[in-house]
């Protein structure tokens, strides 16, 4: 019995680690994350990847929903402008997220929790850098409680 309770206690004592939801585009950023893994580049295990076919497929409500369901940070990554598999998807996304970023800031929701970046299939190192930076920022802020659902 004692052993089990000790294990449980140890589990609850665990330090808080942020949960980061990363929406990665299938053709560039997902391959970039894959490359980071294959090249054995170290990056924090805080990130949970959701693969979308294109950043242009992303509805801004995905980001809001992620925050509602308890994400501490959200990363949206896609191909560099001009490199999109669907020619122009990321250019639509850029306009959309410029407005969402302004809105998040205007409402006083911590802007540092949302990050958008361009990561190509060859930039494994950049993906690791981006994730590390977002994790550091979110760790400083602590758990996200503004939009979290009860």
């Amino acid at each position, binding site marked *: 019995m004692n052993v089990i309770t000790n294990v449980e206690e140890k589990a609850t004592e665990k330090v808080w680690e942020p949960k980061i939801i990363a929406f990665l585009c299938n053709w560039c950023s997902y391959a970039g994350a894959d490359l980071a893994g294959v090249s054995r580049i170290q990056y924090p295990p805080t990130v949970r990847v959701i693969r979308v076919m294109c950043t242009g497929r992303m*509805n*801004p*409500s*995905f980001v*809001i*929903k992620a925050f*509602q369901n308890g994400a501490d940070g959200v990363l949206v990554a896609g191909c560099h*402008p*001009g490199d999109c598999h669907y020619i*122009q998807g990321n*250019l*639509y996304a*850029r*306009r*959309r*997220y*410029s*407005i*969402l*970023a*302004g*809105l998040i*800031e*205007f*409402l*006083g*929701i*911590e*802007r540092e929790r949302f*990050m*958008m*970046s*361009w*990561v190509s299939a060859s930039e494994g190192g*950049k993906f690791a*850098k*981006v994730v590390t*930076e977002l994790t550091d920022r979110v760790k400083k802020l602590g758990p996200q409680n*503004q*939009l*979290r*659902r*009860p």
Partner: protein
Amino acid sequence: MSKEGIKSEIIDLLKSGKIKSFVGYEKGTNPFFLRPLITSSVEEVKKADFSVLCVSNLVRYVIDDFKIALPRGKTRDSRPIAVVVKGCDSRAVNVLLQEHIIKRSDVFLIGMPCNGVIDPKAAESLWYERNKTHDPTKIRISNEGMFEIADGKEEIKLADFDEIESEKCKVCMHNNPVIYDELVWDKVDDKKVTRGERYKKVDDYEKLDPEKKWLFWSDEFSKCIRCYGCKNICPLCYCEECTLAKDKEKAVLPNEKIWKTSWIDKEVNFSNNVAYHMNRAMHLAGRCVDCGECERACPVDIPLRLLYTKVEKDIYERYGYESGMDSEVKPVLATFDINDKEEFIEG
């Protein structure tokens, strides 16, 4: 044209069958507000009125006409609806044309150049404070102010027009309709409001600390009861099934135990309220024409116009686009420029 001239023209059009109905304003029981008049009878059109009390945006009724479910075998009457539009309302028509929701031949636009309409709530509370006769039938409101008709024909001024003018009209930049078939009266001079004046309130809020901003907005959003008044009155919320007000659907297959996801839950709690208003602001990005109807309909007075004006400002400053000015151009978020600013993108 004059008020009587336009009315006789509408009557002629109705008699000859060139339009199917008329949507305008008529005097109702509330002295601070002209109620919408929706009719296809000649007698009723004679009751139509045009004044500073024409508060509501009637374009909503044109959209509602498209939503009526028809019996099998019947087709929609394709004749145009005559609708009275102010400057802001005419821009809403332009957005609907831009998005191919209506055709130009579906509406006959009666433009009403306006120097601002009143805020019924403000006018009513001022009247309660200052009136002497306690008789709501003895009120006259014009663009000179609010007057009370005392004994005989003597009039006492209760308020200046500035005091009762609607907030949205004080910062209006388009006093004349941008699209119309007929005008009720001659065009008026624009108020010459600058962009700086228009976005002053938004700028002030942007300067606040994030904590203060969040405190302000969380106070406002926690009041929301999700009555969907803002969505139901909006002339641009035309979706048959609104994603913001959708019930969770049970999966179709019997052995599937999951519920289909709805992106915004209907349950009223603070988190869902913020999500609802953020999503609505995103849906109105580059479309909102600032007719102010959402704020007027809101029973708990959430400053929705402030939120939507912020989005409008971002769109204007980043992409130089103003909603509803031209029905031929593409909506701003449905297009792109390879050289768009991307200072918010990191890494």
